């Protein structure tokens, strides 16, 4: 079926590729005499000058000389005619081969046959690439235990071929550099805190309970205490120890004394503080207290209310206390280790000045930069801090530089003399970590790489298994599956709230969660790839279960459920999951065109050729609120235009999914008309509904091949060349029947594509 979707190769105008034979102009013009009439009879209906289909005006060649200047074009013409791709079904006249013979003869007489092999005969090359923001966030968490929200702080990454991992496309605009630098400062400060090692819990006024003469000032983040009143924070104290209790407060002063606050621990007063700050500048007031482990109630009470409404000085009439927050810091007696210290500091290195700092920095840089670090680099990093700075300061500044360095931010694979070389262990480890974990290698992976364990296929396979068994492999579901299925488009989806009152952001999140959890389950449970299309289980929470009509699911947590018998074939597998169905719909209606395109582009990795300029409106031509179904409208429009050749297969794939409405809910009718999900492919294969579509997709490994192509693009971080694609096809052919997802991942990793680096241009 896919042969029909093959694009016409772009009509590259290779002028004068073929020099006309001497005297050509004097000869009888075979083109004008015999070929042009064939074109006029069968092609010019659409390929006419005013609005040429496919931007190809076939009337513009008047003489053989003109025609001969574009050999590529005529090879294409011959190809699409002989393959039956043209004229489209919608054309009014359909010529026989005999009627086309003059054209065939002329083309074959003048041009070499189309070369059997693709012209690009080299495998592709991966350009140096930077960590994208998802990888950056994961790397920082994995390396330092610092939870930095890069996905919301850093700008969106550039996407090419559907993935945000392409070296050629990921750029580093100055704004990103600036934000990356600031991120490094923040991360380093959190990893290596300078001021002790206690935790800090800040309880803003809005989160405090009030009682007595106190109230929240709406919208201000402040509690006003106009009479004796108390504000209380509930704090989970991790262990017994000395803590700092700090309040941020100010007062409207009046009377002889400053405003006074009592600090209460579980209702018992432990201290009194004079709040001298005036109302225009809150200040911090703190005390040290001993706290027992467990849940403690920390209160602040205004105890000296003062009210003299008759005082001649208006400023002396009323004393009020204002409280902004209560903070609990500690324990202050014994420092806790940060994850950074736990991982990178050995023995008393923190007490051994620069010598200790060097040892620590060497360890950190070795991991963050994915390989051994030279002594002078370590020394340079430690020397960034001013002379005689404390060790923590040295570490913090060195860590900032490590995180800003291109050695952390970029994946660099230097070229060799040869056209291609095997990756060394640490490079391979880096590719693996990016592919399977969206992160950087951990210590174990780097050690394996440095010991040569990745150099043979068995060792490599063992390491892939370890990585896939690790919790971090869940990120493959977010990064790969999320982009493969184009689930990020779900964020833009906005079903019309009037027609779909049950739509909510929570439901959107549940949908995304289902698709990710499902992919992860297929991966972790070694399920066959075919189950991605048809499974008897899925993941839903109460909200999504209701949307699907699955009974007996309660609560907000996604849970694994068996698909009930009456929904088998409807749910289970990605075609019945709401996330992609919503992501490919319009606010008020479905779009079979977009869904068909999604099947071709995402699932089969065979994006349909784009529509010619100015006519990309077949979908937009659909009117809302018409009596006719979307399908009926599309059918009418398709007949009118020269779009049928591409739209027939594309829309057909989408029609099969028409039972799923714009929110992915099942429906039997549209505007009162029963939905027709029958479709036919150009090679006369008929199918019906999602079940039929699944069978079509599984034919000839089309779906497995599509997945393999997408997975390889993601794994390599680059677009695939025809040669690469041939390699992927080979890899798919070698897979056992009904292979599982892990087998495919193993096959991609074991392939030379993944384990080799190609040389780039040196000029």
């Amino acid at each position, binding site marked *: 079926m896919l042969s029909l979707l093959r694009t016409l190769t772009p009509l590259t105008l290779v002028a004068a590729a073929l020099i006309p034979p001497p005297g050509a102009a004097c000869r009888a013009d075979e083109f004008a005499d015999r070929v042009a009439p064939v074109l006029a009879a069968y092609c010019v209906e659409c390929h006419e000058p005013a609005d040429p289909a496919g931007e190809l005006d076939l009337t513009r060649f008047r003489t053989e000389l003109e025609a001969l200047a574009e050999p590529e074009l005529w090879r294409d013409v011959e190809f699409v005619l002989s393959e039956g791709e043209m004229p489209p079904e919608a054309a009014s006249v359909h010529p026989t081969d005999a009627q086309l013979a003059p054209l065939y003869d002329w083309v074959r007489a003048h041009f070499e046959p189309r070369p059997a092999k693709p012209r690009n005969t080299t495998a592709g090359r991966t350009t*140096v690439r930077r960590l994208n923001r998802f990888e950056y966030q994961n790397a920082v968490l994995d390396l330092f235990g610092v939870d930095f929200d890069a996905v919301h702080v850093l*700008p969106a*990454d550039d996407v090419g*071929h559907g993935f945000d991992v392409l070296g050629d496309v990921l750029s580093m605009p100055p704004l990103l550099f600036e934000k990356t630098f600031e991120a490094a400062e923040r991360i380093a400060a959190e990893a290596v805190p300078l001021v002790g090692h206690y935790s800090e819990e800040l309880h803003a006024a809005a989160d405090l309970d009030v009682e007595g003469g106190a109230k929240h000032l709406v919208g201000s983040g*402040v509690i006003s205490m106009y009479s004796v009143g108390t504000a209380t924070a509930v704090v989970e104290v991790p262990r017994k120890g000395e803590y700092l209790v700090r309040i941020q407060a100010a007062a409207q002063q009046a009377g002889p004394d400053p405003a006074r606050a009592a600090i209460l621990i579980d209702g018992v007063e432990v201290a009194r503080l004079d709040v001298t700050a005036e109302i225009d500048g809150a200040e911090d007031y703190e005390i040290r207290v001993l706290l027992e482990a467990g849940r403690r109630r920390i209160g602040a009470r205004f105890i000296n209310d003062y009210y003299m409404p008759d005082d001649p000085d208006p400023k002396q009439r009323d004393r009020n206390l204002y409280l902004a927050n209560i903070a609990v810091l500690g324990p202050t007696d014994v420092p806790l280790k940060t994850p950074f210290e736990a991982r990178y500091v050995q023995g008393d290195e923190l007490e051994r000045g620069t010598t200790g700092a060097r040892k620590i920095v060497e360890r950190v840089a070795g991991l963050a930069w994915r390989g051994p670090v030279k002594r002078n*680099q370590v020394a340079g990093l430690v020397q960034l801090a001013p002379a005689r700075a404390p060790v923590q300061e040295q570490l913090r500044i060195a860590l900032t530089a490590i995180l800003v360095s291109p050695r952390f931010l970029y994946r660099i694979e*230097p070229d060799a003399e040869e056209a291609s070389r095997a990756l060394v262990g640490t490079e391979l480890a880096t590719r693996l970590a990016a592919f399977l974990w969206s992160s950087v290698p951990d210590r174990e992976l780097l050690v394996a790489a440095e010991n040569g364990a990745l150099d043979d296929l068995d060792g490599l396979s063992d390491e892939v298994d370890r990585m896939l068994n690790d919790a971090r492999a869940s990120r493959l579901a977010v990064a790969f599956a999320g982009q493969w299925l*184009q*689930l990020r488009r779900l964020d833009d989806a906005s079903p019309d709230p009037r027609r779909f009152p049950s739509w909510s952001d929570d439901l959107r999140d549940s949908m995304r969660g289902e698709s990710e959890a499902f992919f992860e389950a297929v991966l972790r449970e070694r399920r066959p790839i075919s189950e991605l299309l048809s499974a008897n289980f899925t993941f839903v929470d109460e909200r999504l279960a209701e949307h699907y009509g699955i009974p007996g699911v309660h609560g907000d947590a996604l849970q694994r459920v068996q698909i009930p018998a009456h929904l088998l074939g409807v749910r289970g597998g990605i075609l019945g999951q709401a996330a992609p169905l919503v992501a490919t719909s319009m*606010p008020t209606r479905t779009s079979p065109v977009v869904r068909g395109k999604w099947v071709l582009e995402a699932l089969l990795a065979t994006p349909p050729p784009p529509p010619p300029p100015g006519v990309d409106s077949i979908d937009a031509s659909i009117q809302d609120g018409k009596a006719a179904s979307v399908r009926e409208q599309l059918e009418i429009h398709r007949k009118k235009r020269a779009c049928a050749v591409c739209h027939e297969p594309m829309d057909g794939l989408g029609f099969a999914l028409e039972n799923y409405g714009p929110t992915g809910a099942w429906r039997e009718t549209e505007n009162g008309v029963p939905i027709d999900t029958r479709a036919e492919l150009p090679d006369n294969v008929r199918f019906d509904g999602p079940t039929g579509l699944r069978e079509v997709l599984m034919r000839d490994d089309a779906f497995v091949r599509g997945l393999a192509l997408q997975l390889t693009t993601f794994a390599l971080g680059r677009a695939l060349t025809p040669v690469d694609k041939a390699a992927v096809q080979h890899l798919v052919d070698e897979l056992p029947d009904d292979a599982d997802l892990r087998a495919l991942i193993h096959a991609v990793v074991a392939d030379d594509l993944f384990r080799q680096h190609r040389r780039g241009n040196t000029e």
Partner: protein
Amino acid sequence: MNHQISRRTVLRGAGATLALPLFHSLGRASAAPETPLRLAFVYVPNGAHMPDWLPAGRKQRKGSGRQTLPRELPATLRELERHRAKLALLEGLTVDKARANGDGPGDHARACAAYLTGTQPVKADGSVIEVDISADQVVAQALGDRTRFRSLQLGIEGGRQSGQCDSGYPCAYSGNLSWASAHTPLVHETKPRALFDRLFGGGLEHLSKEDRERRTRERKSILDFVRRDAKKLSRQLSAADRRKLDEYLTGLRELEERIARSAEDVDVDLERPSGTPREYTEHVALMFELLALAFATDSTRVATFMLGNEGSNRTYRELELDEGHHSLSHHGDDPVKQAAIASINRHHVQLFGGFLDRLSGLEEDDEPLLDRTIVIYGSGIADGNAHAHHDLPQLLAGGGGRLPQGEHLWFDRETQLSNFHRTLFHTLGVDGFEPGTARAKRFADSSDTLVV
């Protein structure tokens, strides 16, 4: 305490109290005596409903010419009636490089990528990005060293994160107006809070002067270290790889410049935005407000602002529309859809009017900031249905008489927008773009500096 309570006022309200004399001492140590001029490009996606944009009688306008804006402004521009004396409507400008020119479909990606670059973006199957420096960056690179930020890029929609963006073009083309170089799109800031922090925070204001200086030294030494290392790395790389490190080094250099220039932090009495408003209207208004303040504090003199990424299919529920913008723009001559497009156009222009109000209200040396700002509002597409890239909607505002005001100008067919960009370069004082000197300095596909 009162401090916090009084700042409950929203940013827009607080902005009104902003007193400009406060800023006169700022960042002008190297003060050039010339009047500072600002340049802003405000971009709207998916073209415009042209019958509501241009004055009637298009057929009669031949060649080039000019006349006073008609008494009755075209429907879309009526939203700007109060600013009519400061407006010039430019008709007949073309971005040829947004056309297919053999590259097939993808008009939205091209319209955006070519709009300020006047260069055909490389298609290459979505795996490469290559266009050229954009007009705003020509100005930023020539004059940007006078302010803390060479330029700012603002937007509402982040980069699209899934699938193909437009017919095989990478998403970078339809989401970026500004290009520092052929391969470096300048990604725009969409979050008001992050923009505020960049402009007015810096994160160091809580530190003492001594600590700030220490921190600045520390930052410089870190940047020094990584630059040396990056350069060493770069020497071992092939051309394509080196390009990536060059982007890195460019970013590094810009940050160094900023650190050197931001010894004195700008202090505005302004509430830090608490987040990104959910409502489009509020979001745009807040970004415009921050842009106005960036100009007022002379933090930058060059900016671009995309009210939507090109091809945006945003649903304007606030206008009672329930179909996406891009979908609607392919109206197929359906009057209902055309009316919807016209209402989106008016909506955008109305928001733009708020920005002009603000620039008129702020003063510098007793002159309205609008007179010291050149704002170009427009799109790289004319009618969205046909994806036309000629007769583009282009509106000029401000400029204080250095450029036409209160007029409607039309130009010969196929006059390139890049010719008008040369005019802007010349007006802003970038050397080498005097009329009649197109050969002296090339820019994109311009043939000469347009005389207006």
